[in-house]
């Protein structure tokens, strides 16, 4: 069976100063997402996570361009679609949940108007049917007394409730895939847990696939089936979530795992030295080598290609894979 979404060698670059400065924000990434699966995209700010998401829904800034690769949704290449065709896909087949609910909700429209819009356009619901659908959607995201709350405006709701409304809007068009870009970063921890559980329940009920963009490995551990770690516009490692946590292969992944404090353990933390590289001046070698604990001569000369890990993902690193399996360096 073909995957629901297949991104193949996607390259999205930003062109500044009349094309003289090229920022390779996304530089040849490939992954696929199956129906009903949760795919995690992890990395630090500026690594190209968000540009990847914007490329998929084709909502890039004017200075950005998809310069290569394909994005196949159920076999159709989204890169070749016109914006008019994309409008019929966004909301109906792919929906998004962004970080800040106050910025993604329109303060001038009631919750009803905003949740009803995708159902009105994409499912052509009208009148009582539309009203009924909005009520169901609000109930599904656990808004208490939806009949009354749908007349409210976003400012009358708390942060957690607003983000649940955004979740209801994302569901409204009946999409096959939801892209959630750091959806809980602005929420408090107990509300974050509520929201993550809610997304899981919605996924179980509707079979929608989730692309979860985050820098928080804890969220990955809780939510995802498969994870891709991004660094400087490339996927440096992709594995099943258990593979990633039990046997991280790429030194960057290992460093990330070692840098987070664990509850109740006072071990010293590992800080990754240096800074992420400038995406406008990427060297030809491995872009992580100046910060790597295990850098070798070869890493400074040649960019590592993708090595397959027997059936379970891939890694971009020169370190031999079997030595890796023997133990941590």
């Amino acid at each position, binding site marked *: 069976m073909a995957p629901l979404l297949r991104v193949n060698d996607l390259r999205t670059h930003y062109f500044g100063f009349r094309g003289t400065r090229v920022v390779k924000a996304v530089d040849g990434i490939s992954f696929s997402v199956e129906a009903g699966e949760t795919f995690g995209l992890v990395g*630090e*700010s500026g690594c190209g996570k968000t540009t990847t998401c914007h490329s998929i829904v084709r909502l890039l800034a004017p200075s950005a361009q998809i310069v290569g690769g394909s994005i196949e949704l159920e076999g159709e290449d989204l890169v070749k679609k016109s914006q008019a065709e994309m409008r019929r896909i966004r909301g109906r087949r792919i929906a998004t949940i962004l970080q800040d609910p106050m910025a993604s909700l329109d303060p001038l429209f009631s919750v009803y108007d905003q949740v009803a819009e995708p159902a009105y356009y994409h499912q052509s619901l009208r009148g009582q049917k539309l009203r009924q659908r909005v009520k169901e959607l609000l109930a599904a995201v656990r808004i208490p007394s939806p009949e009354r709350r749908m007349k409210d405006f976003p400012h009358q709701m*708390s942060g*957690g*409730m607003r983000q649940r409304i955004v979740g209801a809007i994302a569901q409204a068009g009946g999409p096959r895939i939801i892209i959630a870009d750091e959806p809980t970063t602005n929420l*408090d*921890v*107990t*509300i*974050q*847990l*509520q929201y993550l*559980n809610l997304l899981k329940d919605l996924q179980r009920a509707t079979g929608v696939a989730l692309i979860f963009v985050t*820098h*928080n*490995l*804890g*969220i990955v*551990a*809780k939510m995802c089936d498969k994870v891709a770690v991004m660094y400087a516009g490339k996927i440096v490692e992709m594995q099943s*979530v*258990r593979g990633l*946590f039990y046997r991280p292969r790429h030194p960057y992944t290992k*460093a*990330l795992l*070692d*840098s*987070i*404090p*664990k*509850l*109740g*353990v*006072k071990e*010293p*933390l*590992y*800080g*990754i030295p240096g*800074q992420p590289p400038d995406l406008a001046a990427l060297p030809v070698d491995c872009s992580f080598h100046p910060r790597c604990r295990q850098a070798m001569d070869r890493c400074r000369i040649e960019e590592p290609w993708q090595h397959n890990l027997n059936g379970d993902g891939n890694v971009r690193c020169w370190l031999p894979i079997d030595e890796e399996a023997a133990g941590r360096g």
Partner: protein
Amino acid sequence: MDRPLLDVRDLRKHFPVGGSLFGKTRGVVKAVDGISFTIKPGETLGLVGESGCGKTTTSKLVLAAEEPTAGAIEFDGRNLAELSRADLQDYRRQVQVVFQDPYSSLSPRMRVGDIIAEPIKAHEPLSSAEVRARVSELLELVGLRPDAARLFPHEFSGGQRQRLAIARALSTKARLVVLDEPVSALDVSIRAHIITLLEELQQRLGVSYLFIAHDLAAVAHVSQQTAVMYLGKLVEVADSLALCASPLHPYTKALFAASLPSHPDEAREEIVLSGEVPSALNPPRGCSFHPRCPFVMPRCSEQEPLLCEVSPGRRVACHLYN
């Protein structure tokens, strides 16, 4: 050396809300409502809680940027309320702050050297050569090159800016630094550096920290004692490791359950709190946590539990334990 550096007793800060110039106020928000804690020299107290629970108001009170409605703050054995103007200024020299966002806490129009020198000039009569020497020393202390003093903040990354903010906080030989979410605005790979730097500086200089954050794992890593705050009150205060090993108060338990697993197979007791933090304008009667508490008893809605010592060094405000 057992005398605490900072002793906060039954501290309260209430804000009147609403009402026009002549009208009556509509209510009172009890942002901080009777909290007590101590910080020993060279130690760290972690303060955890969700947004709106009064963490930041507490830090403002400790920084003497707000006046408490009631209660006392004693620093080095002297009550803040009784300090003379000159003494209060000296208090402000000794108690400094590092804010969450190093992009807004450093003036973009000042050179780094001037930013760090500003508190020194305000508090100490040093010659400009001495100030320059101190600035270089401080930059090296936080792991930056002394020639960084000539540069402007925009020439630094987020992690480096936070180092600058730390250098500024330490510039007047502070004895207590309030760290208000010092790593939450930083990237994951940078957080570990800042946490490690703060720990090293504490060992070298013997400075105390009040570490305010919502990330339990980070708080427990940095601090000896952890205090959990909910709606203006402390619900549990304990040794950090003991707190991690066995949280007692239901809210602390819920916070731990809500903190994310470090592993896909980590078994977690799932306590999902229903509802959200109630309005501070109209807090529930009795225990303010009772409407969300999974272990609620009839008594909880009538009587407010007091913070009692349940074992040495461990205080809990919950009817389950007394």
